[in-house]
């Protein structure tokens, strides 16, 4: 985010030649349409949880349409927060996330944008630890 401020200031002067600011090599050209940008949080090793999650995906989330505007998706958010905290706190976080998800007024401009086209809503900002809350610029896409 801080870099963006800088880029905005410096870009009119130095926008050219940026391609060559790293040593690139031959590209593999295969014509395939662009890969789907990752929508899911990479799988972590939570065996009992992942069974639950797979079951949930199979029976429910794969069938009830695309309802979650966020990245990570609601179920991934829950799974990840369980593995980072405990089931009690994770449930509170999930209840809050679910409420924000069902927000009737769709205040999407309150969230930074993720490169997948969803709203970026990382776990770290909801752990109740003030020092690790990160505010992301609304003008750029988060990778």
């Amino acid at each position, binding site marked *: 985010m801080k870099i963006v401020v800088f880029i905005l200031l410096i870009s009119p002067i130095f926008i050219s030649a940026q391609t060559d600011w790293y040593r690139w090599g031959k590209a593999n050209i295969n014509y395939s349409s662009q890969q789907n940008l990752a929508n899911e949080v990479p799988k972590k090793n939570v065996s009992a949880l992942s069974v639950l999650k797979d079951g949930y995906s199979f029976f429910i989330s794969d069938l*009830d349409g695309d*309802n979650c505007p966020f990245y990570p998706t609601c179920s991934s958010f829950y799974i990840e927060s369980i593995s980072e905290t405990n089931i009690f706190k994770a449930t509170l976080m999930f209840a809050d996330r679910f409420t924000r998800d069902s927000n009737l007024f769709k205040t999407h401009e309150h969230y930074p944008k993720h490169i997948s086209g969803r709203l970026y809503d990382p776990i770290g900002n909801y752990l109740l630890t003030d020092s690790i809350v990160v505010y992301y610029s609304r003008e750029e896409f988060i990778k």
Partner: protein
Amino acid sequence: MFAFFISFISTNKAQNLEMQKSYADSLFQSERFFDAITEYKRLQFFSNSEEYNYSSNFKIALCYKAGAKYDDAIKYFNIAKTNSNNVQDSINTELQIIRTNILRRTIPEALSLLKQIDEKYPNKIDSSTINYWSGWAYILNDDWDLASKEFEKINNLHPLKTLADSVDSEKYSVTFAKVSSFIIPGSGQFYTGNYLSGIMSLGWDILWGYLTINAFVTDRAVEGILIGSLLWTRFYKGNFQNAERFAVERNKEISNKAYQYLAKKYIGEKP
């Protein structure tokens, strides 16, 4: 023999530049494109005459193209074009710009340039060349039907026409999948071959539909509205969204299979 040696040691500048060119070319040949660009730039920097302007800019553009840096490639092709020495060079460069646009997937630009080039150089370019690159533009735009028509103009038995036709016929209709799941939940999924998902969608819709109606019948209106709005509509929506998604994904798989064939096995000229 001695004289031969001496002549090389006391070379003049022109020969030096020629050496520099062949060094850059050798880097280009060994696919060290980043370094090749450096050496072509060096060549250009030290040659005061305009002798190398066309060839080095053209090569720099080719390097960028090979590294999939298409914006830069087009920039340098355009510089090369203004420095070209004859009509054939200009045409070659324009065709390269078109091919780079195809790779960059700025298809509308590629198509409009193809149209322009035909008017700009009358009787200089084979109409089959225009058709061929138009066909490729449509292929990379996932427009196999239009691509087939372009290749047909070249030759009715053109291998790319055959390919485009087969891809076109294999594709699923996204609208049909969606509409049929609109009418009977799960049927679109059956059409795309996702039977399990189809059955489960149908199951959920029957269950929530039943519970919603049952709630209204037994005078539990609030519960009825809740189940209906939160669950039934959710799964019904998911049902036809899935049908649409499956069709799109299947189509993508079909296209990608063809793209893979084109990248790895097709031996004709490629953009």
